[in-house]
C-alpha cells in the first residue's frame, strides 16, 4: 500500500491536528555542568585544528606545481614566433558540461563573489533519431582585432606583441563600460564595486612560468588547451564564418579560439537561449546624456535656423534666453555622463583614445561644443546688454562695432551648432561600432538627428515662455507670432517621421527567422511593451497633438493673466511630453537591443 492510498483512507478519520502547546518554560533541568559543556563545545568549535593536520612544508613539492605533469600536453611546446600568437583550443568532443572551468577561473584568480571570466553555454539540435547536445565553454578569444581595445577611450587595453594576449590594465580603466558593448563575446565584465572592467588575461603570469591557465588545469577532461596559432590562418578561417554555431560572426574581431570536433554538428544546432529574449541593461546615465546632448545641440541648431529664416532684431533679443536654456541642458547632459563612469575622477583620461575610440571623439566633440556654447551664451548676454563695445573702451561709431559683433556671433553660433552636430555624429558612431543591427549607423544617425530635431524644436518654446513669464509680453507676443507656426510645423513633421521610423522595426515580427531585429521587436512588444506604449503615447502627445493644438488655436499670444497660464501649461506639456518620449525611446534603444553573444543557457 502506498502512502497516497493511506492518506485517502485515513485522512477523514484523522482527528484535527492538536496545536502544539507553547514550549516556553521547559521543566527539564539542565544536567550538572551543562553550561560548561556547551561553552567547551562552542570554544572547540572556534579553533581550527590546523597545527594537527597541516602539511608541514612545501619541500615535498620542490619540483614545482604538482599538476604540471597532468596538463603538460595541453600547453604549447614553443612560444609563438612572428606571425603567431597564443590561443585557447577547445575540444568540444571532450567537454561533458561539468563547468568546473567556470568555478576554477573564479577561484584560482581570486575573483569577486560572482565573477568568472569563463562561461559555458549549450547548443542543441539534431534529428529525432540522432539528437545532439553540446556544451560550449567560452572566455576571451584574444582576438586579432580586439573591439574592446579599439573602443577603449583611455588605452586600458593592450595586445601583447609576442603572446597576442589581450590584457586589460585595471588601474588605467575609468569604468565607462564601452568595451562591454563593443565586445561581441561578453568577455570584459564590469565590476560595480570596483568601478572598472576586468577580463581574462589567459592567466598570463601562469603562462609565463609554464603553468597552465586556471581553466586548462581544472578541466577534468582536458578539453581546454593553449596552442600557438598562425595569425594568417585565423584570418582565413574567419572567412568561412564557422567559429562555433550560434556565435557572432568571427570576421568582426577575428577571435583566435579554435573549437574543434570530430563530429559533424547538425545544421540545426542553436543555443539553448536562442529563443530567450531578455531586456539588456538600460544605462540611465547614457540615456539622459544622449537625449539631453541632442536636445542642447538641437536647440542651438534651431536658434541658427530661426536666424536664417527670420533674420532681424527679434532673434537677437530672444537669443540670450535661448542660448542659456540650451546651454543648461548641454551642461546637464555632460554632468550626467560623467556619473556613468565607474571612476569619474579619471574622466580626463578620455582624450587618450582619440586615434581609435569613437567614445574619445564623442567626449572631445561635446567638450568643444560645451566650451563654445558657454562662450556663445555669455557673448549673447553681453551683446544684448551692449557690453563688448564699452568694455573695450572703444569710442567707435555704433555700426562697425555691431558689425564685428554680429560677425563674431554668427561664426560662434555656427561653431556651437556644428561642433554639437559633430558630437551627435560621434555618438552615432559609438553605437555603430558595436555592430549590433539595432544600432547600425544609418538607423542610429536617423534616430539621433531626429531626436535632435524634435527636442531642439520642442525646447525652442522654452525661451519664448520664459520671456513671456518674465513680463516682456510685447517681445514674447511678436516672437510667438513669428516663430510659433514654424516651430509647430517643424515639430509635427520631425515627430511623425521619427515615430514612423521607430515603428518600422515591428515589420521584423513577420520575419521567418529569429533575427536580432526580430528579437528587438519581440522585446518591444513583449517584456518592454509598457515602455513602448508610453513612448508612442508621449510622442503623439508632445510631438503631434500639442503642436497641432497650438497651430489650430493660431498660437495665441499670451495677453492677460489667464491666457498666460494656458500658454505656459500647453508649452510645458509639449516640451515635457516630447522629452519623456525621447527618453523612453532611448531607454528602448538600450533595453531592446539584441546583443551578440556566445551560446548561452536557458
Amino acid at each position, binding site marked *: 500500500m502506498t*502512502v497516497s492510498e493511506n*492518506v485517502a483512507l485515513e*485522512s477523514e478519520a*484523522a482527528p484535527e491536528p492538536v496545536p*502544539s502547546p*507553547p*514550549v*516556553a518554560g521547559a521543566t*527539564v533541568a539542565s*544536567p550538572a555542568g*551543562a553550561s560548561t*559543556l*556547551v561553552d567547551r*563545545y562552542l570554544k572547540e*568549535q*572556534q579553533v*581550527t585544528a590546523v597545527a594537527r*593536520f*597541516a602539511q608541514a612544508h612545501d619541500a615535498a613539492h620542490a619540483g*614545482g*606545481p*604538482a599538476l*604540471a605533469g597532468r596538463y603538460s600536453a595541453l600547453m604549447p611546446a614553443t612560444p609563438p614566433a612572428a606571425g603567431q600568437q597564443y590561443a585557447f583550443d577547445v575540444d568540444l568532443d*571532450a567537454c*561533458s*558540461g*561539468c*563547468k*568546473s572551468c*567556470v*568555478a*576554477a577561473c573564479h577561484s584560482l*584568480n*581570486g575573483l569577486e563573489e*560572482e565573477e*568568472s571570466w569563463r562561461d*559555458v553555454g549549450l547548443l542543441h539540435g*539534431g534529428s*529525432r533519431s540522432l*539528437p*545532439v*547536445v*553540446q*556544451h560550449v565553454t567560452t572566455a576571451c578569444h584574444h582576438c586579432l582585432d580586439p573591439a574592446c581595445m579599439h573602443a577603449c577611450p583611455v588605452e586600458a587595453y593592450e595586445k601583447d606583441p609576442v603572446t597576442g594576449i589581450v590584457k586589460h*590594465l585595471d*588601474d588605467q580603466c575609468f569604468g565607462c563600460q564601452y568595451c562591454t558593448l563593443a565586445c561581441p563575446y561578453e568577455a570584459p565584465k564590469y565590476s560595480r564595486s570596483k568601478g572598472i572592467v576586468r577580463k581574462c588575461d589567459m*592567466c598570463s*603570469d*601562469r603562462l609565463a*612560468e609554464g603553468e597552465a591557465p586556471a581553466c586548462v588545469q*581544472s578541466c*577534468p*577532461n582536458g578539453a581546454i588547451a593553449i596552442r600557438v596559432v598562425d595569425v594568417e590562418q585565423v584570418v582565413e578561417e574567419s572567412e568561412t564564418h564557422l567559429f562555433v554555431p550560434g556565435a557572432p560572426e568571427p570576421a568582426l574581431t577575428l577571435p583566435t579560439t579554435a573549437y574543434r570536433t570530430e563530429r559533424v554538428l547538425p545544421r540545426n544546432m542553436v543555443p*539553448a537561449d536562442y*529563443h*530567450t529574449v531578455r531586456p539588456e541593461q538600460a544605462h540611465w546615465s547614457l540615456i539622459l546624456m544622449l537625449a539631453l546632448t541632442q536636445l542642447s545641440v538641437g536647440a542651438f541648431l534651431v536658434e541658427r535656423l530661426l536666424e536664417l529664416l527670420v533674420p532681424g532684431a527679434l532673434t537677437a533679443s530672444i537669443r540670450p534666453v535661448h542660448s542659456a536654456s540650451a546651454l543648461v541642458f548641454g551642461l546637464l547632459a555632460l554632468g550626467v555622463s560623467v556619473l556613468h563612469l565607474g571612476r569619474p575622477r579619471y574622466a580626463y583620461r578620455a582624450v*587618450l583614445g582619440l586615434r581609435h575610440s569613437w567614445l574619445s571623439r564623442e567626449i572631445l566633440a561635446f567638450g568643444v561644443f560645451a566650451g563654445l556654447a558657454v562662450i556663445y551664451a555669455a557673448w549673447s548676454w553681453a551683446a544684448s546688454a551692449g557690453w563688448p563695445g564699452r568694455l573695450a573702451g572703444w569710442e567707435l561709431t555704433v555700426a562697425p562695432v555691431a558689425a564685428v559683433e554680429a560677425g563674431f556671433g554668427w561664426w560662434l553660433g555656427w561653431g556651437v551648432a556644428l561642433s554639437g552636430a559633430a558630437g551627435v555624429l560621434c555618438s552615432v558612431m559609438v553605437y555603430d561600432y558595436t555592430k549590433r543591427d539595432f544600432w547600425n549607423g544609418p538607423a542610429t544617425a536617423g534616430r539621433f538627428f531626429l531626436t535632435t530635431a524634435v527636442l531642439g524644436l520642442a525646447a525652442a518654446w522654452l525661451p519664448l515662455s520664459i520671456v513671456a513669464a518674465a513680463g516682456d509680453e510685447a517681445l514674447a507676443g511678436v516672437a510667438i507670432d513669428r516663430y510659433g507656426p514654424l516651430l509647430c510645423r517643424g515639430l509635427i513633421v520631425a515627430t511623425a517621421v521619427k515615430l514612423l521610423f521607430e515603428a518600422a522595426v515591428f515589420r521584423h515580427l513577420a520575419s521567418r527567422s529569429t533575427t536580432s531585429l526580430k528579437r528587438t521587436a*519581440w522585446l518591444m512588444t*513583449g517584456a518592454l511593451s509598457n515602455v513602448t506604449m508610453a513612448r508612442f503615447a508621449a510622442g503623439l502627445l508632445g510631438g503631434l497633438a500639442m503642436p497641432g493644438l497650438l497651430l489650430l488655436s493660431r498660437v495665441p499670444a499670451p495677453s492677460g493673466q489667464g491666457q498666460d497660464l494656458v500658454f505656459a501649461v500647453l508649452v510645458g506639456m509639449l516640451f515635457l511630453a516630447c522629452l519623456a518620449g525621447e527618453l523612453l525611446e532611448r531607454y528602448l534603444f538600450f533595453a531592446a537591443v539584441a546583443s551578440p553573444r556566445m551560446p548561452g543557457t*536557458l
Partner: protein
Amino acid sequence: MLYQRDGHLTRDLLRAPGGFGLGQVPARLKPDATTDMVCGYCSTGCSLTVHLKDGEAVSLTPAADYPVNRGVACPKGWEALSVLEAGDRAAEPLRRDASGVQRPVAWDDALRTMVERFKAIQAQHGPESVAFLSTGQMPTEEMALLGALAKFGMGMAHGDGNTRQCMATSVVAYKQAFGFDAPPYTYRDLEESDVLVFVGANPCLAHPILWERVLRNRHDPAIVVIDPRVTETAMQATEHLPIRPKSDQALFYGLARLLIERGWIDGAYIDAHTRGFDEYAAAVEPYTLERAAEETGLGADAVERLAETIHGGRRVSFWWTMGVNQSYQGVRTAQSIINLALMTGNIGRPGTGANSITGQCNAMGSRLFSNTTNLLGGHDFANPEHREKVARVLDIDPAVIPTEPSWAYNEIIEGILRERIKGLWVVCTNTAHSWINQGQARDILGRLDCLVVQDMYATTETARMADLVLPAAGWGEKDGTFINSERRIGTIKRVARAPGQALADFSIFKLVAEYWGCGEMFRQWQSPASTFQILKRLSVGQPCDITGIDGYDMLDERGGIQWPCPAGESEAVPETERRLFEDGRYYHPDGRARFLYEDPRPLPEPPSDRFPLLLLTGRGSAAQWHTQTRTAKSAVLRKLYPAQVYVEVNPADARARGIVTSDAVQVESRRGRISATAFVTRSVQPGQVFVPMHYEETNRLTDAVFDPYSKQPSYKACAVELRRVAAVG
C-alpha cells in the same frame, strides 16, 4: 595621472607562487599551510587541498595526488568553502513561540525544550513515538553517535536517512545477491574495462570526476549508455540506447536469455560461485528478443548488438545510479544487472563488476554505521549474537538494543499519518523539499507534535516548519570520516569557524545525551577520533573490517583506505585500489552469489488521456546539489544553471501544445501543478518530459510509490500534462 599601469586594482589580481605544489595562486590568498580533506557533496569522494592562512581556510584546489580525483574537481567542490559563509546560516538555536514565530534561544533552553517535549511524547505515546531522519552527508562518527544515542540512549525504535532516497535499492540488491552490502569495484575499473555499460546513470553531470576516470581508459572501450534521455553521458557514449522508462528489467532479462541461448555465458564461474542460475535461466525464458525489443522500444538489432558487445568484451563493467535505484522495482532491476555480471563472469577481475555508484558523500558510511536498518557495523538487529557483540564493544546493556530494524523513511512518514510517530528529529536533510509527493509530505510533517530540525541553514524548507532549530556546523567546520562509492574512507577536518553558536553535530549529540540523562552511556565517544576507534572495534570480523587502520593520520598518509582493511593483513601497505570478490567468495554462508529475479511490473501511473506525458526527474547540472540548501549559496554556482525551474519537452509534444522555448508553462500531475519555463529539446523523447529535482516545486508532481524491498521512492515515472500559460518574453 594619464597612464597608470600599477595600483591597488592591478595588485588585487596579482598571482604569486603558492608553494605546497599549488602553482600560482592569488597573491593575497597565498597560504601558510595546507591540508587535504574529502569533499562533502557526492560519493565520488574527491580530495580537496584546503589553503590555510593564519589558521583559517582561505581557498581550496583539488588535491593533486589523491587516488580518486588526481587534481580535478567539479564546480561544487571548487565552491565548497564559499557556501559556509552564507547569510542564512543557522547561528543560534531557534524555538517557535506561542505566536508561531521562531525566536533565538540559548542552547540550554533549546536542549531542555527538546528533551522535555520528546520525553513527554514518549511518556504519552510510547518510546517509539519519537523518531529521527538523518542523512548521507554527515561523517560516519556522527551518524554512529546519532544512531546509538537515539536507539540505545533515548529509546527510539525508528530512524532512517535520506540515503533511503538514493541507494536503498542497491543496498538490498547487494545484500540479497552477495550476502553483504558490498559494492565490489574500485574506480580503476573504469579505466580498465573494454566495455562499460551505464544504466540510468549520467556521470558527466552527477559524478563528473568518475567520468574523468572513464576518459583515462586506454582500452578504446565501448561505452553503452542505457537511458531514456540524451544526457551528456549519452552524448559521449559509443552507443546510446534510449530505452522506454522502467523497461530496463525486461531488457536485461531479454539480454540474459539471449546470452544463454547463444552460449555466451561463463559456465565455470556460474558453477563455482553462484546459486540459482538454472531457475533464473528458466525464468527469463519468456523474454524473447522480440519481447525485449517490444517492451524497451529499442530495435531487436540494438538488443542483439548489446549482447554481442558484452560477449565481445573481455572486461565488461556495469554501472548504475538513480535511474535504477529510484524505481518501484529497483531492487530486481539492479539484480538483473548483477545477474548479467555473474553469468558472464564479469566480476572480481579488473575492469568488471556490477557496480552501483552511490549518491551522497557518506551514504556508504550510513549504510554501515547509521544504526537504522542495520545494527552498527553492518550487523543485524534480529541476531542476538550481533547485539551481544555491539553491546560488548559499546559497554552497554544488550537489552537496550532493539531486536528489529527501524521503519524505513516512508514508513516513518506513514507512521506520522497513523499517529504512531508524534515527535521527529530531522538531521541534515530537507524532507519538505525532497520527499516524494511534496504537498502530502508537508501536510504530514505539519501534523507532528514536535519537529526538531538540526541543520547548517535556518532557511531550509524543513527548518522553516520546525518547532526547534538546532544550528549545526557544516563540512569544513568539523572532523570525521566519509566512505566513498568505492569503499574508500577519507577524512574531513575543521578548517573554518562555524558561525555564532553553531556546533558540530557530534557536539550536539553529546549535549543531547547529557540533557537526556544518558551521557554516561557515551563516555567513550569522546571525540570523532575516539569514535573512529569504536567503529573499528564494531567492524571486527565483518566484511567491512577496518581494524587495520590506525586512525586519521594513516588515512591521510595513504590517500584514503578502502574497506576491508583488517588488522594483521595491513602489515604490508594495502594496495591503493582494491576490488572485492577476486577469490570468487561471496558473503553468504555458502560463499556463493545468488541470482534473484521477479517479473517486471507495469508503470504504477501510466500516461493517460488526461495526463499523457511521463515525467522524469533527475540531476540538472553538476553545479547543483540535491535540495540546494548549500549550492544555492554560491554566486558562481548560481550562474551555472537556470534560476527558475524548467521543463524539457520534445518538439513534437511542444508543437502539439503550441509551446516554444522560454514559454511559461504549467506542469500538472494528479498531485499538484507547477509553473515552469519550457525548454524544447530533442534530448527527451516524445511522450516524456524532464524536470530537474533541485527546484523546490518538482516534488509536488511526483507520486509516492516505493520499491517493495528497498522502500526507495520511485521519483522517475509519473504521469503529467503540460500547458502553455504565457508567451516567450
